[in-house]
């Protein structure tokens, strides 16, 4: 008898505690037309944080009925936190950072994101026409891009000159010669942060972009079956490159951006001649170079691969944007419009040193390296999204594993593709 009562008391307390927890929801629109926008971003640098705060305050001034609650979240925590918060529309942020690709499409399929297709202004649609597609799922618009970060090789002009390389290589044959010349001059040719895996996997992405025809590319994004031979060829190209030992000594234990011994640090300190990265590289250099910046940092596109069926002038990169959650108030769309107006996009460049998504704001880019990136971008036929963003984390993780395994001598090009098949079983 007592036992039943004890259990009863415990249950009652459980129920009480649970119901207390569940009561605390958030309310968006009050009776008097006042609206709160919860805004999540990942800018944690001093200038980045200040930019986002300032953005919120300016928007509030323009729309007195709106309060923007800004929350900065560490990049590493962001995906997990967002995913958890989106499970319940009460805890979901109204405006949140989105990188497009598979993740956005998963959220769309779970009915968590607002369809913006008919809501965005004409001006936004034309001024951001080259990057909007990143935030599209099944032909519908779900987010607004704020920046783009095309990838390619960042290199030290001084070290290239020292090794007698006249101009940056345009194809793989020239690239191999450049690597050889750098090695002859006693300079480690390429810095690679393989500890983080993705910088190594990026080589495979780029070779795949050059080897695989756009049609193959697009159909594989849907089927996630890497059956075409071009995918194995991409691995073979990387294996061939790795066999010329172009990477810095100990690249398997080198991280991408932490400290002077990271791959970015090696380049910044002239201990390696180049690195394959996204266009956030010049900003990373600021913290790592001896005097706060690297004067001789140049950029060239990923070399052409002769005989490849892929688009030889295509670029690959990322583009961060913002999206509204499905139950966000309508002011959310105004906020997105506001984020990408010309002034705010120019400010964005100043705060983050990254290329603004709005075309009319790109004239603000005054960093010489980024100007080179923009020049290459202008000539590129298209920009594909990073493969791991496109294919989703499951495939991205498998590619990371396969590429790192191959570079450490465990497995070959075929095993990389096999890893993606195994990954498909897991999720």
């Amino acid at each position, binding site marked *: 008898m*007592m036992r039943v009562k004890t259990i009863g008391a415990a249950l009652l307390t459980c129920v009480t505690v649970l119901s207390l927890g569940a009561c605390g929801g958030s309310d968006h629109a009050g009776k008097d037309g006042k609206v709160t926008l919860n805004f999540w971003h990942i800018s944690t640098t001093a200038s980045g944080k200040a930019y986002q705060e300032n953005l919120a305050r300016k928007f509030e001034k323009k729309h007195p009925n709106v309060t923007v609650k800004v929350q900065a979240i560490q990049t590493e925590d962001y995906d997990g936190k967002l995913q958890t918060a989106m499970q319940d529309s009460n805890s979901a942020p109204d405006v949140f950072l989105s990188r497009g690709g598979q993740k956005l499409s*998963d959220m769309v399929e779970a009915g968590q994101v607002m369809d913006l297709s008919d809501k965005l202004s004409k001006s936004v649609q034309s001024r951001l026409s080259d990057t909007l597609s990143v935030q599209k799922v099944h032909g519908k618009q779900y987010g607004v891009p704020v920046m783009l970060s095309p990838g390619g090789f960042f290199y030290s002009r001084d070290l290239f000159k020292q090794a007698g390389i006249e101009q940056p290589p345009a194809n793989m044959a020239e690239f191999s010669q450049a690597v050889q010349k750098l090695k002859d001059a006693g300079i480690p040719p390429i810095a690679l942060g393989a*500890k983080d*895996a993705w910088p190594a996997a990026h080589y495979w992405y780029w070779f795949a972009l050059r080897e695989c025809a756009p049609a193959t590319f697009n159909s594989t994004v849907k089927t996630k079956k890497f059956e075409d031979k071009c995918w194995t060829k991409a691995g073979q190209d990387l294996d061939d490159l790795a066999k010329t030992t172009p990477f810095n000594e100990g690249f398997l234990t080198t991280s991408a951006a932490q400290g002077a*011994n990271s791959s970015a640090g090696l380049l910044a300190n002239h201990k390696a001649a180049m690195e394959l990265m996204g266009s956030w590289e010049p900003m990373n250099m600021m913290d790592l170079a001896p005097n706060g910046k690297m004067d001789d940092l140049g950029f060239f596109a990923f070399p052409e691969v002769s005989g490849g069926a892929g688009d030889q002038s295509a670029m690959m990169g990322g583009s961060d944007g913002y999206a509204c959650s499905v139950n966000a108030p309508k002011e959310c769309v105004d906020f997105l419009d506001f984020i990408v107006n010309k002034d705010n996009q120019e400010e964005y460049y100043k705060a983050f040193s990254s290329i603004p998504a709005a075309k009319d704001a790109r004239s603000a880019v005054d960093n010489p390296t980024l100007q080179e990136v923009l020049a290459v971008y202008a000539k590129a036929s298209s920009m594909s999204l990073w493969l791991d963003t496109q294919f989703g984390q*499951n495939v991205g993780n498998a590619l990371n*594993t396969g590429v790192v*395994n191959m570079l*450490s001598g465990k497995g070959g090009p075929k095993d990389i593709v096999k890893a993606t098949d195994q990954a498909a079983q897991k*999720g």
Partner: protein
Amino acid sequence: MRDPNAITKSRRERVEITLLSTPAIIIFLGFVIFPVFMAVYYGLFKWKGFGSPSSNGQFIGIDNFVLILKDPVFQKAVGHNFFIAVMSLIIQIPLAILFALLLNQKFKGRGLIRTLIFVPYVISEVIVGTGWSLMLQSKGAVNAVLAKLGLAGADWIANPKIAMWTLLFVISWKYVGFYVILMLAGLQSIPEELYEAAAVDGADFWQMQRSITLPLLAPTVRIAAFLSIIGSMQLFDLVYIIWGQYVSDTAGTSTMATYMVREGRLASNYGYGNAIAVIIFLISLLVALLYQKFVLSKDLEGGLTESK
């Protein structure tokens, strides 16, 4: 004839027990038992972690569990965990006993050395990991010092032949201080008279240690070994920081927990990840229960069982 006072007393006692244990029971049920069952439930789905598993995932029964147990990468990781558990015991426990015996003697600067031995344990895993990973890189401080001494360095982290021993070294360096403190505490509880009596009987130092210290220290050693085994089963942070998810696999230092983070969280396969968590839980539980049944039973008598 029952004593009415006894009934009220026992009733009051029960109310007291209920009142005092309820918060702990709620927390235990809510944050330990409930999540375990939820993990089992999620583990039955192919699910990306968006929406609910029943509507956005795909029910696949025990497929995830079968896949995990069949995955050679996971099998290797389990092997690493058990190897680390055994080697940690072999290295750390004797070392800790020796240090404790030494530090139990009276000599100048004993307090300072006791503190120094304990310092690595106090430093957070992240700092220890970052520090050692920087020093052990191919172009790091360790190899630079070796080169100055005219010795050839090695790739301490990425070379699969060396990596596991590097990990064991760092683990031992970090945790031996903790076991030394445990052993020292154990030594304090051994009555001085026993040693005096032994000395009168003409026993030498090592005889005393073998016949008095070790047997009386045994309960402490059993608890220390238990903590060490559990720690080895759950090992994650040092491997994650020094090797990272991907290189730990090729270097041969991956653990069940790094496998879970890589295949669950990084791959965004939350159903699969939950299934891994359940398997890790079951393996750890089994190890803990077996250890308690066969090794710890004497020490825990009356604590976890009905008193006799």
